[in-house]
């Protein structure tokens, strides 16, 4: 090993560690904390931290709406203007692999970086 090798290794490690620290402090917050992500027609509408209680009214251009509520680490659809109300009947979700879908309004609510549910599906 030559001296240049040590310089190269040191430079690479410094870059990696700075990038690591930069991610943590500059970008703010832990990127791994669970987020509630709402998409409308595939376009992201908003993202909200799962550990913060709040109620969010999602208004669509054509006047229809969904009301989302986050509480105790769970998300549920409180109200919706859709005719079938399937999203409102959906039980509150808390894991990554369980989205709430409101097909008539094309609204999809998922949790990113959440814990995986230990079961695949539940048949009622």
């Amino acid at each position, binding site marked *: *090993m*030559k001296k*240049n*090798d040590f310089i*190269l*290794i040191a430079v*690479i*490690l410094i*870059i*990696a*560690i700075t*990038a*690591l620290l930069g*991610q943590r402090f500059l970008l703010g917050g832990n*990127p791994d904390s669970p987020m509630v992500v709402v998409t409308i027609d595939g376009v992201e509408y908003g993202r909200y931290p799962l550990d913060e209680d709040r109620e969010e009214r999602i208004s669509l251009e054509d006047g229809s709406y969904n009301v989302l509520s986050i509480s105790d680490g769970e998300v549920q659809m409180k109200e919706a203007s859709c005719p079938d109300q399937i999203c409102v009947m959906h039980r509150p979700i808390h894991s990554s692999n369980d989205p709430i879908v409101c097909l008539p309004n094309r609204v999809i609510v998922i949790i990113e970086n959440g814990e995986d549910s230990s079961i695949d599906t539940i048949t009622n």
Partner: protein
Amino acid sequence: MNTKKIAYLGLLIALAFVLSYIEVLLPLNIGIPGAKIGLANIVVVVALYTIGGKNAFLLSIVRVLLVGLTFGNFAMMMYSMAGALLSFAAMYIGKRTKKLSTTGVSVLGGVFHNVGQIIVAMFVLETKQLIYYLPFLIIIGTISGVVIGILSAMICKRVKLALS
């Protein structure tokens, strides 16, 4: 390229293939997708130092195709190919500067293999968040690069004796 060199290149390709297979059998499970020891990189480094850049380039392409077709799928082959190309370019340039020893060249190879894979994965999966893994992968690439570099230097010394 004489017969001896052709036979030697074939031997190295077979060795790279087997080392990749060993890596498939023993995955490094530390919770970071794409983190690998990169055992096959030993062969690429040895080839680069014994039979030259052109043959080493051929070897790394053939290796990715063989491993992708046998053990992987198309997506995996695409990631590996990007990693292999970028890593080879970095190692070739690193060797041409004549300022680095085998270890430094191999570290460059390990790091850029991971960088290439992550860049392609970001485009294919359209997930920008994958970049969060990059610093971890760079650190792992550096560590495995050092080990592989030291090993390759030892192998090169003996192979050069045998070839001459």
